[in-house]
């Protein structure tokens, strides 16, 4: 399929969706993609496996050893990265235009025939364990993980276990676990966007050939169980010494998925409450600009990947000296927003902001590749890239207020990590 306005070409073959677009970037190609297969498809005891595997996909395949892979990348000035999350295993790369074919073949080779040598896995486990130890003093991660523990029941995909549990699972992970996980990966649900200094038709043929070598993989996402339980607690404070700043997350589970009819309205509502920029969100205008209580306070729709029921999350940083005052002010301003903030003029300003920023965001190879990848993952037609602004413009105040009724504002929890003044 050809998308003329933005010079985007889509190639659909079986379960694969490939997109390619030429941008203004010179001498640079960006690839972003993913295949189905991730920790949602494994038992909880094995949920560190995809993370560990992603770090050692390039540590040797049946065709070449670690040195050969890394030297081949290095000689081309190219970079390749794997990661995992939820239902998917992600890959990304940047390279010069002449190396796209090489990159696609190498990504396919790593996904298909990585060997995960025992010595490499052992070394990676040590690094991962060290990173998990580091996480014990990282206030943002601590507060965020606790937020998900507060609002989701333990069987929900968005529930986050504790650091000691992840440490124990990392220690127990074996090579055979990585090899089993690898069997999940293939053409199933493959989405890849290639943008930059390319000729789309030529590139798509090469990339399609490279990925055609993958096995079938996993055909569908996992079915998600809805969250039904009430928050475990209203507040949780994780004390970490020597910290000058407190990271805070507030919010609640929202019974929507990205396929819900109200989802778009919900994202606009979220942005009206806590959009980035000095004026784009009610909380930045009040808690930062008026009250001076934070450097940044933003609302986000989180945890909606893989058609899971996600959450509305307000994240902020507060000074220990004014922490309590800032939390109370935020709670108050959320109520003010609901009572008085969803107005016609506020919605019109937000529509202008979101549609304008959308155009700006598509002006880079990375921004365009990311958007195309999301369209592929969420099974939207390519035309959605043009439809999105008109869908936003069509929303009414009533739509936004309806979306607001779906958020359990009275069930908001507060999760914070840092050095609390009364608990040093």
């Amino acid at each position, binding site marked *: 399929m050809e998308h003329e306005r933005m010079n985007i070409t889509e190639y659909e073959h079986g379960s694969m969706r490939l997109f390619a677009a030429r941008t203004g970037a010179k001498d640079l190609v960006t690839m972003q993609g993913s295949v189905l297969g991730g920790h949602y498809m494994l038992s909880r005891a094995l949920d560190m496996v995809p993370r560990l595997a992603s770090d050692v996909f390039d540590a040797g395949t049946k065709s070449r050893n670690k040195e050969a892979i890394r030297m081949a990348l290095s000689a081309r*000035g190219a970079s390749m990265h794997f990661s995992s999350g939820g239902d998917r295993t992600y890959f990304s790369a940047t390279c010069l235009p002449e190396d796209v074919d090489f990159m696609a073949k190498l990504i396919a080779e790593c996904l298909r025939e990585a060997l995960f040598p025992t010595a490499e896995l052992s070394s990676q486990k040590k690094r991962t364990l*060290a990173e998990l130890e580091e996480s014990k003093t990282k206030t943002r991660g601590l507060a965020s993980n606790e937020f998900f523990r507060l609002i989701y029941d333990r069987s929900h995909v968005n529930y986050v276990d504790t650091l000691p549990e992840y440490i124990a699972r990392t220690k127990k992970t074996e090579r055979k676990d990585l090899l089993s996980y690898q069997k999940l990966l293939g053409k199933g649900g493959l989405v890849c966007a290639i943008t930059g200094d390319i000729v789309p038709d030529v590139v798509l043929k090469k990339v399609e050939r490279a990925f055609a070598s993958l096995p079938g993989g996993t055909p569908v996402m996992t079915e998600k169980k809805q969250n039904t339980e009430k928050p475990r607690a209203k507040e949780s404070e994780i004390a970490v010494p020597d910290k000058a700043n407190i990271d805070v997350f507030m919010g609640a589970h929202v019974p929507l998925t990205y396929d819900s009819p109200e989802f778009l309205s919900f994202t606009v509502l979220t942005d009206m409450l806590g959009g980035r920029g000095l004026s784009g969100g009610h909380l930045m205008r009040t808690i930062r600009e008026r009250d001076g209580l934070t450097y940044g306070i933003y609302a986000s729709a989180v945890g909606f990947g893989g058609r899971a029921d996600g959450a509305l999350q307000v994240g902020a940083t507060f000074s220990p000296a004014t922490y309590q005052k800032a939390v109370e002010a935020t709670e108050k301003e959320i109520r003010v927003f609901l009572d008085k903030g969803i107005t016609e003029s506020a919605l019109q300003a937000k529509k202008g902001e979101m549609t304008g920023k959308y*155009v700006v965001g598509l002006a880079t190879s990375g921004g365009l590749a990311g958007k195309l990848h999301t369209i592929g993952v969420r099974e939207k037609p390519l035309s959605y890239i043009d439809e999105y602004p008109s869908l936003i413009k069509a929303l009414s105040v009533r739509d936004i207020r309806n979306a607001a009724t779906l958020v359990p504002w009275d069930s908001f929890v507060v999760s914070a990590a840092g050095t609390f003044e009364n608990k040093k």
Partner: protein
Amino acid sequence: MKAPVNVPGIAFTQKAGTIEEYRLTKNGMRILLAHDDSAPVAGAMVTYHVGSRNESIGYTGATHLLEHLMFKGAEKFHPKKGNSLDAVLESRGAVMNATTWLDRTNYYEVVPKDVLPLALEIEADRMRTAAFTEEDRESEMPVVRNEFERGENLPIEALDKAIWATAFIAHPYHHPTIGWRSDIEGVSIERLRQFYDDFYWPDNATLSIAGNFDTQNVLRLVKKFFGVYEKKPGAYPALYTEEPMQEGQRRVIVKRAGSPMLGMAHKIPDARHADIPALMVLATILYDDKTSRLYKAFVDKAYATGVSVFCNRFHDASLFQTYITLTPNMPHKKAEDILLKEYYAIAEKGVTAKELSAAKRSIRVSLSHRTDGPYALLSALNEELAAGDWTQFFTFPEAIAKVTTKDVQRVVRTYFKEDQSTVGWFIPTI
């Protein structure tokens, strides 16, 4: 080559690569234009040639605090008039912000192309008529202090501040751009106003515009909005402080909750010096991908979770820095010895042609990112302007291409001397 556009009151001065330079003849403001019509988007950035290097004791962080106050309104665009600059721009889709660093302060907007005139009008408005008050300082100071506090939560930021403060004792690179906490809290509105009046003038600024625009129209708008100002009457405050010669290794320890970390820094020359391209290649050879020397020496062996190497390109002589986040139980001393061994190996045996070639190709890819959208281009130009020569946007890649293995070995021998080094240890308290 396309002829430069002729707009009365604006003089064409030079062209390098695809970028044209003009000057507003009335006030000397420099204008850089980089046209690219691949997307319906354009960006404007004003770089003021003032940064934390222009600060002194008592008002460290003033450049940055002033940057925040520059969003409080000016003559035409002001919250009290119901048209605050951020609301006006953001409601039309602008991605906008400002940043401050050692040698410069920049304000930018990336916008749908029809919004570019508004962005120019707003930047011109706040160039000389910013209307910040004591009330604004009172409300903004805690915001900036929280930004400072966020940084203090990070081991690398705490160690980095300590290393710069130890490596530089006289030159203002000694203090962090965010400033010392007591100065953030204590600097007066009068001092901030003085700072604004000292440095925010058209002849101390460069306006860069990139993306999809009509050159004739845009130059007319620049003249209309920025041409209302005169150049600064009188001289700019001179920075005459020179860093005295370092006479021995300096060491610093930070003890806090966090992860163990080693930092090592060596004095290097300013960004325009002929040795900087070789130092940049060296940084890439030391740590870029999984074939890099420090990746193999530390990460592959699980001695570290990560390594960062910075060849800074600043206006004045600065630092070449390596930071290593150690895995638990990895002694700092052992890590320091391994790092020095890697430096010495290059000093003694040099690097291979293969390493040099891969590093150059990696830098080529990295520099290609600068062409990916208006912001990337403006941001890269901004740093070249701060360093003192924007044409390095084009000449630096050429200089990189000319670096030899001998150059890399020579710069290690020249600059990686123990007496010119500063070593920092971040030691976790828990």
